[in-house]
């Protein structure tokens, strides 16, 4: 009798709340539909059009074909790949190394170092780009030129020549975007159970053996997470290139994100910009899929 009553009560609890649930998600759904779902669908439509505010014309696959034939589009993809290949792995290695070094320290030192390394992530991208612009000042008195002179390297026009402009953006990324990954690595490192180390020590394992047989396998899910989010983020990079080099010189730092921005809001080629953005989506999806396929098969979540 009691059990039956309980079941009825429970059933009434579980059902009958649908209305509340829809009310709770209503605003979220409207915002999502209006500002994400509808724009995505609209982007598909625009990508097949020559967009004009009053009456666009349907042009089929022209925007896609044109993008694939455009040398600048390929160059921007190449630049994006170069930038990603130079920044993401180095940042992962740096963060991993720093996290390992922070690990044996006392709690308050750990927290202080975490805070220090995270600080650039708190500053706005515009502020950082303004500062780095002056660090890269091409005059003799520029900070980086002074540092280069110390190592016997001559004056460089860091952002102004194709040879060094990409490197300059990469250097900036190395020194200002590792805070988050250091903290995530450190949290994962602290999560490794001590018993693994104890067992290894009984077998007489050295520091580097422990590192390669315990730590690195345990860090695989974290590394995969940081790698995937890092690459996805890097493929969308636009702000630093826009604010510091404008994509130049000679499009040496024009990345896909910037190219799409320029097509959309400099030349108002909405159709082509949308087509390129959708191509970018496909590229990112393929890369993420490959990473999960090859790195993620023995990762448990």
């Amino acid at each position, binding site marked *: 009798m009691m059990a039956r009553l309980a079941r009825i009560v429970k059933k009434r609890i579980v059902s009958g709340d649908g209305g509340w649930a829809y009310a709770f998600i209503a605003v979220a759904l409207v915002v999502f539909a209006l500002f994400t779902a509808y724009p995505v669908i609209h982007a598909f439509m625009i990508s097949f059009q020559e967009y004009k505010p009053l009456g666009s014309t349907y042009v089929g696959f022209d925007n896609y074909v044109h993008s694939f034939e455009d040398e600048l589009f390929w160059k921007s993809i190449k630049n994006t790949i170069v930038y990603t290949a130079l920044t993401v792995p180095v940042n992962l290695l740096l963060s991993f190394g720093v996290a390992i070094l922070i690990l044996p320290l006392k709690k308050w030192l750990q927290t202080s170092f975490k805070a220090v390394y995270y600080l650039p992530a708190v500053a706005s991208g515009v502020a950082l780009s303004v500062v780095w612009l002056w660090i890269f000042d091409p005059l003799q008195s520029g900070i980086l030129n002074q540092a280069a002179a110390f190592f016997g390297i001559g004056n460089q026009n860091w952002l102004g020549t194709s040879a060094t402009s990409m490197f300059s953006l990469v250097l900036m990324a190395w020194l*200002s975007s590792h805070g988050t990954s250091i903290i995530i690595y450190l949290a994962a490192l602290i999560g490794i159970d001590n018993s693994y180390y104890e067992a290894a020590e009984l077998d007489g394992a050295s520091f580097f053996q422990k590192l390669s047989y315990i730590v690195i396998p345990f860090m695989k899910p974290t590394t995969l997470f940081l790698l995937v989010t890092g690459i996805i983020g890097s493929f969308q990079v636009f702000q630093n290139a826009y604010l510091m080099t404008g994509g130049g010189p000679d499009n040496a730092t024009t990345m896909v994100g910037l190219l799409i921005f320029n097509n959309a809001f400099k030349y108002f080629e909405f159709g082509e910009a949308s087509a390129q953005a959708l191509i970018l989506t496909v590229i990112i999806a393929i890369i993420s899929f490959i990473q999960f396929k090859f790195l993620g098969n023995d990762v448990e979540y």
Partner: protein
Amino acid sequence: MALFKRHTNRKSILYIRNGIIIIVLLAFALATLFPIYFMIISSFGDPIEAGAASYTLWPDKFTLASYKFFFDYSEHSYRWLINSFVVAACVTVSNVLFASLAGYAFSKIRFRGRSVLFAVLLCAMMIPYQVTQVPLYILIVNIFQIENTYAALIAPSLVTVYNIFLAKQFISSIPTEIIESAKVEGCSQWKIYAKIILPLSKTVMAVMAILTFMESWNTFFWPFLVTNTMEMQTIQVGLKNFRFANTTYFAPMMAGATISAVPMFILFFSLQKYFLEGVTVGAVKG
């Protein structure tokens, strides 16, 4: 018994090892902090054109003239800070409210279409913002025609999918029995949300609020697209315009950068614990 040897029998080795580690970490910290140090120190210099200025790493003079120069650039420069604050505050409040409501519904209330809807939301997180930027711009500027308004700055980020996901993850970990017994006592869903769920998820909501506020304060791209009058710009857009208008004024530019960054530094140092926690909330148990 850890990754590192404890050196319990020989303390001196332990101290030397930790000393070396700290020196290496400090060197890297110096490289990380250098741009920020350089920015703040230089902002106290004279507002003269850069050709005459040479950079010093030590403050040889202290004047607020460059800050004055930055604010004098436009009669609306104080407005930029107010705009940034208003937008960030609205976005933060609405995100915490609506993301927690939706997170509660998605994690604890059964309703038709729940898993399908949530899957759609998750898929949308994978789409790069370049895809939506053009249609969103058309929607706000051409269709709604709300260029240069707070509504245009705030509306698209009223509630983000990431925050809904964050709230759902946390609220799932609250035991369902608490909610069921509240129901038996005759609590309405709204009461359960306000009296049980919100108080229990205070910490994660604080983390969400701080990260959302910071992101909104620092965002450049969207305000740059939908504002073209000086009085509606945010501090980040204003700083960018100042930089392109006064390319040779070194110290005032640094003053502007400092102004745009310092509110976040203050927030960071006073709420450090939540910031550092927030970084790992979405990642480790993701």
